[in-house]
Structures are given as C-alpha cells and as structure tokens.
C-alpha cells in the first residue's frame, strides 16, 4: 500500500503547522525534563480528505533537540493503516512500544515484525520506543495523531509518562474547542475538511513490539471534527 504513495509533500497551511508546533515543543520539553532522550522526536498527523479519500498527513516537521526537521517531512501523506499511527487510527486508542527486557530483545522482535510488514527498515536503526496518541473528534473519529519516537528502551512503557502527555493533549483539545466555538480571531479559521473513505492497506504496526494502551484514554475534541487552520485575507 505504501508503494502507492509517493513521499513528496502535499501542502499544509502554515497556520495549521504553527498551531501544533508549540504544543509539540512543550511535549518535547516535558519528555526531556529529567534527562536528554536520544533521538527523541515528535510530530503530528491529521486526517485529511482528498477527492473523497481519507489519508493521514504529517502536519509539521519533527520537533526535536535541534529544532524542526521539516524538509521532505511536512505534508507527507500515508494510508490510515501506516505503522503505529495506523493502529491508533483504527482502534481509536493510544499505542506504544511495550515493556521489553533488553535492547537485544527489542531488536529481535523488530526484525521479525519488519519481515512481516515488509516496510524495508533496518531493525538495527529503528527507534527503540514509539508512541501514537489519537486526538479524537466529537464522533470519536481520529482528527490528529501525535507521533513520538526515541532510542531509549521502555521510554513510553511508563504509564505515568504517557498519561502526562495524554493530559497535555486534553488541554490542547479544550483550547481548540474553545477557539472553535468562540472564534476570537477574525481571519484565522478552522476551515472544515470533508469526511472521506479511509484509504488503507495491510496494517504495518509492529505487532510483537507495540501494544494498545488500555488504561489511558486518548484526548478528545468536543467541537473540532477536522483540523485545517488557515489564515484568510479578510
């Protein structure tokens, strides 16, 4: 399925990018509060419709310790079954890399999963920990998906850490619900995206390594069914 998608960007309005980046920077700061985390990076994807077909689209670059890694990243589109994001999209639950005893064990399991998913990645260089948090809309439809990855063993297996990021997401949702209802910015609006038929293929989640988080609920918008902030001229 992924072969049907080319990896060049389709545009994302600058206002939409700017709307999520400070949040991701805050998440990044929170995740590094005790110590620096190797290869930690976060980004946000959104559900986006194109001619009746629903995809995931990377809203902004990866936020990390060096700022923003955006060239060739922002605007990429994916089928809704892509990797751990796809699992979060389908199940409407938070997904993460599960608790595993050693790096060696993670690599062994990853090698088997990569063979199954045929995503072509090198198990030796794939991040040791992943997190995907869906931000659900009023009808429980995924609107945004936060994606994080890093090279620290069991980093997202810590419930308290995941719970804290989910709580930050809850605050993000509350703010954007308020903005949606009160419209304080005359020219900055969330222009609605049409609903579409999800485009999916074989799931490419790493099934042996990654798991749904059953005990922490994902953040939820009450009033935001899609995320497409744009600046109008007047």
């Amino acid at each position, binding site marked *: 399925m992924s072969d049907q998608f080319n990896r060049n960007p389709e545009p994302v309005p600058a206002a939409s990018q700017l709307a999520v980046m400070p949040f991701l920077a805050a998440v990044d700061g929170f995740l590094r509060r005790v110590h620096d985390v190797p290869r930690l990076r976060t980004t946000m994807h959104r559900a986006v419709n194109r*001619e009746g077909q629903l995809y995931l689209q990377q809203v902004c670059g990866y936020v990390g310790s060096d700022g923003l890694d955006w060239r060739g990243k922002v605007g990429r589109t994916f089928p809704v079954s892509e990797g751990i994001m796809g699992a979060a999209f389908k199940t409407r639950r938070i997904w993460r890399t599960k608790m595993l005893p050693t790096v060696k064990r993670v690599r062994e399991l990853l090698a088997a999963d990569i063979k199954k998913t045929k995503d072509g990645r090198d198990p030796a260089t794939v991040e040791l920990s992943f997190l995907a948090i869906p931000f659900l809309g009023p009808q429980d439809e995924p609107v945004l998906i936060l994606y994080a990855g890093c090279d620290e063993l069991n980093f997202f297996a810590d419930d308290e850490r995941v719970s804290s990021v989910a709580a930050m997401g809850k605050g993000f949702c509350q703010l954007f619900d308020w903005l949606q209802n009160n419209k304080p910015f005359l020219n900055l609006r969330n222009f609605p995206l049409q609903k579409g038929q999800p485009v999916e293929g074989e799931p490419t989640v790493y099934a042996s390594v990654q798991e749904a988080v059953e005990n922490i609920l994902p953040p939820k918008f009450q009033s935001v069914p899609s995320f497409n902030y744009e600046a109008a*001229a007047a």
Partner: protein
Amino acid sequence: MSAKIPDPDNVERTFRVFPNLYIIGSMERGVTIYSQQVRAHNLAWALWELRLKSSRQPLRVAVVGGGIAALTMAACLLCLDEKVEITLFERSWDLCPFQQGADTRWVHPRIYDWPFAGSRAPSASLPVLDWTEGRASDVARTILREFGRYARAFATTEARLSVYLGLRNFQINAAASQISWVGHRAVRHDEFFHLEEPEGKADEFDIIVLATGFGTETTVPGYRMESYWRNEQLGQPPLDGAQRRYLISGFGDGALVDICRLAIERFRQDTIVYELFDEELDETETHFAQALSDPGRSQNVFDLLRENDDTWLRIARERLRNRIRKDTRITLHLLGRRREVTNFTYIFGPYSSFLHRLITYLLYRCGAFDLDFSELAVAVRSHQVDPTNVLCRYGANTMEHLKKFLNVSRPIASRLTQMKQQQLQTPNRFWIPGTFPHYSNR
C-alpha cells in the same frame, strides 16, 4: 478501501487534441485559476506515468502560453523528471500578463464551488505553485516567485527550460509536431528575465501543450471593453457625489461579479458569504449543498432559490437590502449570442457559479437592477447609459483565438468541438498524493 488510482490513460485522453498535442481547459466551462492548475497537475502526472517514468529518452515539451496554467504545467514537468526539456512560449513581454498588477480583481481558489465542502478555504493547497486567496496581482506575484524557485531548483541546465517572450509569427503545425516563431529568448534570473536579441526559429517537439486560455474577450464596437483583468474603479464609490447609470451585458461569472461590485456596498468576494449568512453559514452551506447534489435541481437553480426565499435566504436578503449602493443604477442586459435569452430565469442555468447566481437572485429581489432583453443599442439608449458605462461581458471566442496560431484542421476542429460538448477535463485531483517533488527538498 485501497486508494482509487485513476488510469493515466483516461486522464491523458481528456486533454489530447491530436497525437502529441494537448490543450488545458480552453474548451471547458466554469474555468478558474485553481481548476486550470489542477488540470495542469493532472496532465503532467499522466504524461509522466505514460511517457517518462519507464523511459530513458528525453522528452521535448513545448508549453504554449505564459499564464498560470502554463507555468504550472512547466513547473510540474520540471520537478517530475530530469529527462524533460521544456520550451515555454509567451506572446507578451512577461509571464502572467493578465493578472500582473490587477489590483481590482479578487481571486479565490474554490469560492466558485460554494456551497460544497472546502470551497471557502483560502489556500489552493496545490503541491506545485501553491497560492492563497488575494488580489489577482498578489496571486500573480506568488505564482511567479514560486515558478522562479522551481526553475532554480530543477532547471539545472539550459536545455531543461527555455523561455521565449515577445513572440511574432508564432505557428504550430500539429501534424508535424513543429512550431515556428520569431521571438526573444529570455535568460532567467530567478523569477525575472533578460531578453536576448530576437531570432526566428522552427523546432520539433515530442509534445505540445496549449495552455493559452480562451483568448481576449469579445469586443463590441462603440462600447467600453476593458479586459476583465484590467484595473478600473467600478468597486469604488465616486468622489464627485454623482449617481451613475451602468449597463452590464452578459450572464457569465464575469458579468455577475461586476453586478455585485456595482450593486453592493463594500463588496468583497472573499467575505460576502460570511456577511450574508453569518452564524447560519455552515447550516446554509449544508442545506444548499444537499439540494445541489440532485442533478435535476442544479441545472437551473431559479426554482430552488425561490423556494428558499422566505426560509434560508430571508435574513441574507434583508442584510443585502441594507447594502445596495446608492451611487449606481444598473441595468442587466440579457440577450445571448444567439438571442436565446428571453426571460430572467434562463441565466440561472449552468452558466456561472452558484454563488453568483444566488447573489444575483437576492439582488433582483432587492430591486437592485433593471432587466432588459432588447438589442444592446436599444437598451443603452432607452436606459440613457453613457457608452463608457456599458460593460459587455461576453467571454472569448476560443476557436478564433486558437486559429491565430494553430492550423485548425478538420480533425482538430472536430475534436475541440467534442471536448466542448463532453466537458471531461474534470478539475479533480487525480495524481497520487505526494507525486510532485518540492523545491524546498532539493
């Protein structure tokens, strides 16, 4: 479901006039800058899939025209494949000659699709030569800047992009895939060009793409006929306190938008739906989008508008009534090229955007203009309109325009007529997401 990927053969076929000769949008109805750009993306993608992707041969492409569709076509092909060698021909002395400096025309990517979802979004969201709503001059500036960036990133050798400006004696021989011309080769400096001495030349191309639009608008002797894109002051209240009479002849979008500008105080195309419907905008959109999805209802919308007069349109009508310009008196002259218009309801057929038809209906209900169905000269006399205030918006004669530089043989004429009847160049995005590389990643 799996991604629905259209067959590039089918897409390519809708643009093909003759073997190796393609035309973008000239025979289509309801053409906008955005829809022409989508068509350019579609054609570039289809040609890439069919002629380039699995070939090692370079492809020599002539793009005829220097407007936004032509620049989009050239930029799409440039970024898609290094084997493409493009020659771009523009009759004027600069690119985007229509929109450059056009400060009085507002352009929005999809407002003519209103009330359908996404139509209000201000950005075109196109992978190549993207832009956001604004004055036509602002959009031209963005497009030219973006084209310069694509050219800088992807036209790495001289053969990749040649531009000729100030053309004379430009002729296309479609049967021989040959173009002959006299013109100035333009040397690019980012988004600007330096002209070399003129030269006469003839060359053969693997593909010729006509992105020449429709030609200039039909003129009527004796009456003012500034091109749609030239600056004028119709939208500004006069400073001398006078009340002026205007006559607008025609019923396409060009005519109806001028009715709006002359009849509505502080009219802006980008804000009018917010001002008319305010808090009820989303619900109004949904209501009319549902109604229009019935093909039987969307052909002529007069009855639909009349049925909603006292419900969905009531508040909008009252709001509009307070905004009728006091400094103008307007006659809408309706006759048609074949004198086919005999009543007002006719113009609510598919000759303009739904938004313009809706506002025209509301203006009619507010008594904002008179109607006249007589011969133009009679109408002008009877309404005592100064000939300088007569605006004839009849569109262009595209076939005559094409004949100026293309030998329109019988098969070509027949194919163009077929294209006009079939209207198959749908402005839907057919390319696979992520097809087009962006200059920022080079």
